[in-house]
């Protein structure tokens, strides 16, 4: 597809389980971002990948959160030992190049519910 693709669209899991969320950016976009959106709140930055540079992990809330990106393609966000406060919509975005004025294009998100 032409846009940012995220999977799964919904994920329900039990507290303590690990989850893996996937993001396929727009082809040719070197920058990729993960954000978290809790109910009734704005977007919280998690992590930013730019090409082959070291990622900006400054937004990850705890060491239970990690993310990887293979080159300039797919990214996965992993949450280990999930907690109820991890329930949120996780949004992925990509842009042509992160340091410039290029706008970010968002996927539809993964709605994560921790029971």
């Amino acid at each position: 597809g032409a846009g940012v693709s995220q999977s799964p669209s919904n994920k329900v899991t039990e507290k303590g389980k690990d989850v893996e969320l996937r993001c396929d950016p727009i082809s040719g976009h070197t920058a990729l971002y993960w954000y978290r959106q809790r109910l009734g709140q704005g977007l919280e930055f998690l992590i930013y990948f730019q090409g082959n540079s070291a990622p900006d992990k400054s937004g990850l809330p705890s060491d239970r959160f990690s993310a990887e990106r293979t080159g300039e393609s797919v990214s996965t966000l992993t949450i280990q030992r999930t907690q109820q406060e991890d329930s949120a919509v996780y949004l992925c975005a990509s842009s042509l190049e992160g340091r410039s004025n290029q706008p970010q294009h968002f996927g539809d998100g993964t709605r994560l519910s921790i029971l």
Partner: protein
Amino acid sequence: AQSVTQLDSQVPVFEEAPVELRCNYSSSVSVYLFWYVQYPNQGLQLLLKYLSGSTLVESINGFEAEFNKSQTSFHLRKPSVHISDTAEYFCAVKQRGSTLGRLYFGRGTQLTVWP
């Protein structure tokens, strides 16, 4: 660091009425400014952006926003709203010339248009 304040969490209006969604930002450096719209169960879509030049920017569906440097504001306006404009609107800033690609978002304003 940057911060974004959206003063109204909810704005209810009647169809064909004018609307203004307020956004103020705080930054020690120059920024790019964006408005995004989010429809239910979807990701964010770019509505309009201010990068440089004319301080008044317009979208294709009748919204406009004006950058006011002295008041550090970027309010969104539409002279006559439609029911289809019902959505959540997010203001965001990005630091110019930074190696950090992240956006800083406000908490969002839910616009509800009544018939």
